[in-house]
């Protein structure tokens, strides 16, 4: 139990997927303008990552490993992830139309969010068991959720400030992201 909790904490904060591994930057910068959509994106990614790490772990250990098809893992994982994203998209379209509209093109782009594939491949590399994989996936996506929500909160505040002309838009956002990454570096010493 303690190891699981520790794993959760490590993946969510210390090895934060966005701010210390620099994975999944596209939605992190693209959908962090508003707190609400950012939270929606975070939850969507959490669903996809947790589910995909569960399924890919089962598939890898149950199908690919016995058949000695380990080299197919990337293709198989992408297949699973794409299907899951499709599923999440359908569910969102059905149950939360405004969120679906707000996420727009970034929703199908979760498929190519490298954080998702990254977690799945990481599980394989570290030879994680099923439960460890799920916790790892959940922790990582929780890290993504935390990062994107904090970022959106900061950006909402920044929007009200008088930013110098040359820093408007992406430059100030990237600077903020960099400062946040430095702040998260502090978790290394927990």
């Amino acid at each position, binding site marked *: 139990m303690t190891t699981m909790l520790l794993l959760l904490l490590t993946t969510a904060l210390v090895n934060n997927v966005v701010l210390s591994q620099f994975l999944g930057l596209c939605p992190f910068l693209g959908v962090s303008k508003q707190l609400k959509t950012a939270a929606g994106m975070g939850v969507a990614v959490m669903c996809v990552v947790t589910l995909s790490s569960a399924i890919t772990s089962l*598939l890898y250990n149950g*199908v*690919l490993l016995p*058949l*000695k*098809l380990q080299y*197919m893992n990337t*293709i*198989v994982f992408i*297949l*699973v992830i794409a*299907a899951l994203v*499709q*599923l999440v998209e*359908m*569910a969102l*379209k*059905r149950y939360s*139309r405004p969120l679906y*509209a*707000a*996420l*727009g*093109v970034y929703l199908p782009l979760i498929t190519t969010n490298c954080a998702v594939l990254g977690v799945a491949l990481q599980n394989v590399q570290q030879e994680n068991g099923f439960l460890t994989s799920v916790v790892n996936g959940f922790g990582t996506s929780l890290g993504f959720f935390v990062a994107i929500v904090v970022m959106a909160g900061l950006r909402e505040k920044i929007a009200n400030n008088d930013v110098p002309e040359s820093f408007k838009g992406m430059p100030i956002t990237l600077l903020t992201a960099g400062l946040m990454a430095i702040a998260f570096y502090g978790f290394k010493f927990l």
Partner: protein
Amino acid sequence: MGTAVLIAAAVVGGMGLLIGVLLGTADKYLSVATDELTEKIREVLPGNNCGGCGYAGCDALAEAIAKGEASPTACPVGGQAVAALVCELTGKKAEFTRMSAYVRCAGTCEKTRHIYEYFGDEDCRRVTMVPGRGTKACAYGCLGFGSCVKVCEYDAIHIVEGVAVVDKEKCTACGKCVDACPQNIIEMVPYDAEYMVTCLSQERGKSVKDMCEAGCIGCGLCARECTTGAITMKNNIAHIDQNDCTNCGWCLEKCPTKVIRKR
């Protein structure tokens, strides 16, 4: 060796099939009945999801058009062709007016007084940095260094006697010259509009006269005489609202400096 390939293909293919079936079933339970009109409009739109219309993507725009929130002509990429198709679907009249750029300055080399000689970069934005904003006495007019000419991809704008002039037949209303002009004297006007105030100087009448023979002195006669009230005065300059203008030509008749021009 051959069997290994077959197994791999079978595993991935089988998984694809399984996922396909699962998604198909999920679609049955989760699908939302989308409006038929929305679907049809969506098919007509370009589908690049560029967001140029201000909506999150083509899907969002299609929905907004179907609901009547957005104009059928809202897609800037599709232009007239797409607008016509969308109008056909929605049954709305195509309100796509062809536009063209117009340079609001008539201060040619002859008509405008020059205050000094300029030797330097031939670029309007650079010239705005020098004192007096260029060699012409008037600080509001065309600088004549052709930054607009350089950005035009359609060969529709040229410098004629020190002033940019738009060929409205070639102009596609892309708006690049409008953005390029540091003096902000290029305007988008309807292609059919005939009468323009060809000056933007905010100076008072006498100083305008001193600087340029082709300037608007802000007398306001046109605004008083206009039968449809399309002309308003602001900052010593006349503006014609082309939506209200009937192209009668009375203002040109009355204008003492003939700064209102027919094109």
